[in-house]
């Protein structure tokens, strides 16, 4: 059987706690290479938690269920191993690291990734070329790569910078947590088109958003609605429009009547 028909990511009955409180209450999700899945849902429903659990954030405790990534048990891996296997998380709130330049940060990240894959270190000149090329994808001001990681970046610049890092690291699975929030129309177009340009038949993306408008640029294959730690509804891209006009109430009512 060719890889095409296998799931890249297989989440089964995933439960997770934080500080003794159950946040994820049985998530099921299957993603194949080449697909884009959007996750929507009201505030506090567990979207960021799901993203963090997949990335391996240690304060969340998985109590039940499994996650398989490319046939491997993702839950057994360290944060960095997951990253180097090709899981990328675009943060809802990117972290500032003063005194460490963006260029050096990425250089370390890429060299770790290559080490993990058994590849020789990248040549400096190739690295610089790649920075230039990928910087263009998100129209990132080149001076930003010389500045400290996210320090003093505007909200929009931080989000663009997440996509820029994604472009540099070329993950198999990109999980973008509200990369569209805080963006003006131009930035939204840039980020949306950037993600679309980086799309290949071999990679996949989970796009967490509150707004239909991002999905005009990144057309999803599936949309899932997360509510109270569960996926209560899945559909195709038309669902986003309906959610935009009608909100989540009709789904939540249906779900709670069941």
């Amino acid at each position, binding site marked *: 059987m060719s890889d095409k028909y296998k799931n890249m990511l297989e989440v089964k009955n995933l439960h997770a706690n934080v500080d003794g409180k159950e946040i994820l209450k049985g998530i099921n999700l299957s993603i194949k290479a080449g697909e884009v899945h959007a996750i929507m849902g009201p505030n506090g429903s567990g979207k960021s938690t799901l993203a963090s659990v997949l990335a*391996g954030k240690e304060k969340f405790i998985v109590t039940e269920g499994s996650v398989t990534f490319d046939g491997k048990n993702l839950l057994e891996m360290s944060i*960095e191993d997951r990253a180097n296997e090709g899981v990328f998380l675009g*943060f809802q709130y990117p*972290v500032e*690291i*003063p*005194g460490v330049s963006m260029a050096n*940060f990425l250089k370390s990240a*890429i060299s*770790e990734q290559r080490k993990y894959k058994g590849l020789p270190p990248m040549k400096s000149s190739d690295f610089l070329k790649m920075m230039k090329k990928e910087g263009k994808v998100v129209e990132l001001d080149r001076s930003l790569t010389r500045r400290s990681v996210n320090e003093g970046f505007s909200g929009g610049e931080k989000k663009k910078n997440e996509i820029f890092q994604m472009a540099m690291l070329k993950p198999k699975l990109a999980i973008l947590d509200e990369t569209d929030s805080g963006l003006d129309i131009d930035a939204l177009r840039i980020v949306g088109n950037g993600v679309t340009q980086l799309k290949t038949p071999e990679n996949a993306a989970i796009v967490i958003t509150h707004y239909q408008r991002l999905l005009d640029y990144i057309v999803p294959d599936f949309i899932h609605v997360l509510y109270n730690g569960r996926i209560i509804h899945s559909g195709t891209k038309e669902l986003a429009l309906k959610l935009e006009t009608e909100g989540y109430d009709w789904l939540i009512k249906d779900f709670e009547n069941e």
Partner: protein
Amino acid sequence: MSSLLDTINQKTSFDKFRQKGVEVFEKLGFPSSKVEEYKYSPLNKIFSEAELSYSENIIEGDSYYDKEGVTKCSLKDFSEKNEIIFNKYFNKLAEKENDAMVGINTALCSNGNVIFISKGATTKEPITIDLSFQNNNFGVRELIILEKGAIAKIIINHNQQDVSWARVCEIFIGEGANLEIVETNIKDVSSRMVNTIIVEQKANSFFKHTIAVAKKGFCRNNIKVNLIGDYAECILNGVAVTCDDWHTDNATIIHHIAENCISRQLYRNIAKDESTAVFNGNIFVEIGAQKTEAYQKNNNILLSEEANIYTKPQLIINADDVKCSHGATVGQLDEEALFYARQRGLSLPMAQRLLLGSFIGEVLDVISDEELKESIKESLSERL
């Protein structure tokens, strides 16, 4: 004590100050933990009177006189060749200090460096002083003078192997003068030391002092700044990395005496193993020092359960129209930042080193010499 004085060459310009120094020391003795400023760094546990000694041969490097207004020489030579200026400045700050270590240093005052920048002159290159010696010496005495409008950059490198010692450096910054000092104590040597700098700033002057410490043994830095002229400003930054059983203590006392002066302090410590890092920060805003701005920050990271961090920020304000803030934090590395770096593929130790580098880097960023800054960062990173 007095028998020790008898052995000193009593034919110098310092002699007339010695007796007063003896009195101060004999009254106070090595401070114990009962003395508030030395609570976490009691000197009576570190030094004994038996090891009190002095040495005149501590000067290495070149000397020059009035090279385009810049003089660098030994204190002894300066006291003979520039007697008028020597008498105008020498001991004028030290004699006001009620401090045992300043007392003993004055009593045993032997030799040290002098840097004198005359009115309006500028150092072309930073002046480097390598303080490197192998004998116990409690009389290391230095003098830095910037006359009106002078500009200077000075680098002081500590490199004392296996000694107990005390230094007092008096610094006079004239009207509108500008002085940057970078002090490093990061060589792989062990010593027990008390390093005191006493600064006086006249109107519109600027002083920037950055100190980096990562050394074996015991190190107490007393940094005292008196802002006596209006619109004077100082930036005092310090970073210490302690490992094994090392003990480092940075203690500052800023006196806001004139109006409209600004002081900014940022001190950060990283304590590993069973080491101890201390910060004692004092700001005194005197009556009449209106429109003072005084900021003080101390952040600490504990890398082991056995390591000790003590921090004692203190703010005493006697004027009403002032902006002051102080804050101290003790913690571990930021979890969210560690997660972020690891999510990009950096291993845990790498992510930790990166964040520690960032923690230190912010303190050192005020150093104007890029190369020097990078080399200090590198030396400190090696300890982490």
